[in-house]
């Protein structure tokens, strides 16, 4: 496998950013990591994962769709779409890498979402294997190997060097673009690191959580479960879980009157919000119980039902640590489970 010494990471980033925009996770002042556009001198974060997921790169929180220019009584429609620039997201974890596959199923299925596709086509996802998973991690539940992430290309560290391998053509192209910096390396030590990571993964408190009792066919078992009341009663109805979630893909389309025109934009929506999917006739989910149920049924039942058994969760654990009242998908799964 090709590798580069960890102390030459700067050089690697400089080389990538010379040809296209590079995003890497960096540490913020408050200790949390977030993706930043690479600039010389930036240090790759050692945090397990970024506070916000990487979905913004393809599905940003707000996005302009179309403009209407108004003058007096005349309206002109302006297409604001532009070809995206090429960019690389470096250091994506296995869970987030899988989230793109899930988002693809939504946005690249017919009818294709051209805004999403535009970015997806131009973005290269370079993943990074995990070495120190946290107690909140449960990617294994969804068949994700944190030690062997997906993505266009993947990186592994053995503590001395960074190993890079391509998973597809895009990944190969990426490696080719930096090949001058890379050299062939011995992966023996890497395998040991991987094995150690997998050992730890097995010891994590949520290692035994499985999806065995969930899936597209479980609608009737769970929809009317009497557990929903108890589970949802503490829910504040905020959107934290949905906004830190790498797979939540619901959005709302709104018009903003700028005074001289209308900007039609979309923004993330949250099924936890009281006006989620509010329609002309009213709101289909009037209680927090229904909205709460929607989120988890969607991830554990509806999504697999429509996507060949793929679940709408990647076990990144963000919602576990960020929910203000610590209610989360793990607690829901454990409470609901009909064996």
């Amino acid at each position: 496998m090709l590798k580069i010494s960890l102390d030459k990471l700067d050089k690697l980033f400089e080389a990538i950013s010379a040809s296209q925009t590079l995003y890497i996770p960096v540490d913020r002042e408050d200790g949390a990591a977030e993706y930043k556009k690479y600039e010389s001198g930036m240090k790759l974060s050692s945090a397990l994962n970024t506070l916000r997921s990487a979905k913004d790169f393809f599905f940003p929180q707000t996005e302009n769709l179309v403009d209407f220019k108004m003058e007096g009584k005349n309206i002109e429609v302006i297409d604001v779409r532009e070809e995206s620039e090429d960019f690389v997201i470096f250091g994506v974890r296995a869970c987030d890498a899988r989230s793109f596959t899930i988002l693809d199923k939504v946005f690249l299925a017919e009818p294709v979402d051209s805004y999403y596709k535009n970015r997806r086509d131009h973005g290269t996802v370079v993943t990074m294997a995990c070495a120190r998973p946290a107690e909140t991690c449960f990617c294994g539940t969804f068949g994700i190997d944190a030690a062997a992430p997906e993505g266009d290309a993947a990186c592994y560290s053995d503590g001395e060097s960074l190993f890079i391998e391509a998973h597809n053509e895009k990944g190969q192209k990426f490696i080719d673009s930096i090949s001058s910096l890379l050299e062939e390396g011995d992966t023996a030590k890497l395998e040991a690191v991987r094995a150690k990571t997998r050992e730890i993964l097995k010891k994590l408190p949520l290692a035994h959580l499985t999806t065995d009792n969930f899936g597209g066919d479980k609608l009737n078992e769970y929809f009317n479960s009497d557990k929903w009341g108890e589970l949802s009663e503490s829910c504040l109805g905020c959107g934290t879980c949905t906004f830190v979630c790498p797979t939540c893909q619901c959005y709302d389309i709104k018009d903003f009157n700028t005074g001289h025109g209308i900007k039609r934009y979309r923004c993330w929506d949250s099924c936890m919000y009281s006006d989620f999917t509010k329609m002309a006739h009213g709101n289909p989910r009037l209680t927090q119980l229904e909205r709460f149920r929607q989120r988890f049924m969607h991830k554990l039942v509806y999504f697999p039902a429509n996507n060949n058994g793929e679940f709408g969760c990647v076990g990144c654990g963000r919602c576990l640590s960020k929910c203000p009242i610590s209610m989360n998908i793990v607690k829901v799964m454990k409470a609901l489970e009909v064996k």
Partner: protein
Amino acid sequence: MQEAMINRAKQLLADGAVNRVIGWKRGEFAYDITPAVFETAEELEKEFVYDDFTAANVSKYLVKESKKEGKILAFLKPCDTYSFNQLTKEHRVVRENVYIVGIPGGPKLDAEKIKAKGITGILGVKNENYTLKIDTVYGEEIMPFYEAILDKCATCKSKKHVVYDELMGEEGDVLDSNRFDMVEKLENMTAQERFDFWRDQLSKCIRCNACRNVCPACTCEKCVFDNPNSGVENKAPADSFEENMFHIIRAFHVAGRCTDCGECSRVCPQNIPLHLLNRKFIKDINSLYGEYQAGEDTTSRAPLNDYKQDDCEASIVHERGVE
């Protein structure tokens, strides 16, 4: 404490004095605690928890719970009692339907602070004489208790319960806290520095509304920011203006009503120090209109619903501090 609380709760349930108990439930990890309502002694035995991580202020839940059938037992920490009083004053809770047991408060722990030390894979946390022994998948870690306490506890304003039906443990005092230090520090910066500070902070906002939804003062039937007819509704910070707008108005709407319970900052997933905005209002109110602590009582007039003929003019803003 936890044991005593469970026993008292069981007793009150058995007596029929209350039919429900609001408290906290243990989760997957040492630190993930969920507010919960208990109806039976068995549930209490099994899941009720009160420890260093039970920081959540449960008073807001009483808006709904106190309107249900029967009386509910609420264990309230000192800071929670202020919130409860404020809610009583605004007719948002039915006081008669709540049996309040005042319990000693924090300092409570902040899991984020532990994690920020690089400690991960946490399996258990023990407080041994104010040293935290943290069991992790990577081995045992140690850190001083006080380095892991919540910011809101570090600037605690009062250990006194302002409302209760009975007290457990000893009653504390209103503290001489240093809670305005950071506000003051910002006030002494230049306008440009303040602008940069807040731009940096507020640009992190993802508009998840956690700060608002957790806030015991934000109990509007429908928030203006959720109401399409209000003219200011929005779901995402589409522009830096909207980030400012949301947080200015959020703080303004609770000005004179915010008890400074600190929940907004505690729950912010982006670690924005939102409480500084609230505290700025509190500090201004105290210095311009006289000391006022929201929630201290249920009868006083909120500073913004009150006036004195010789109040200072708005131009005072132009005359003081740093431009």
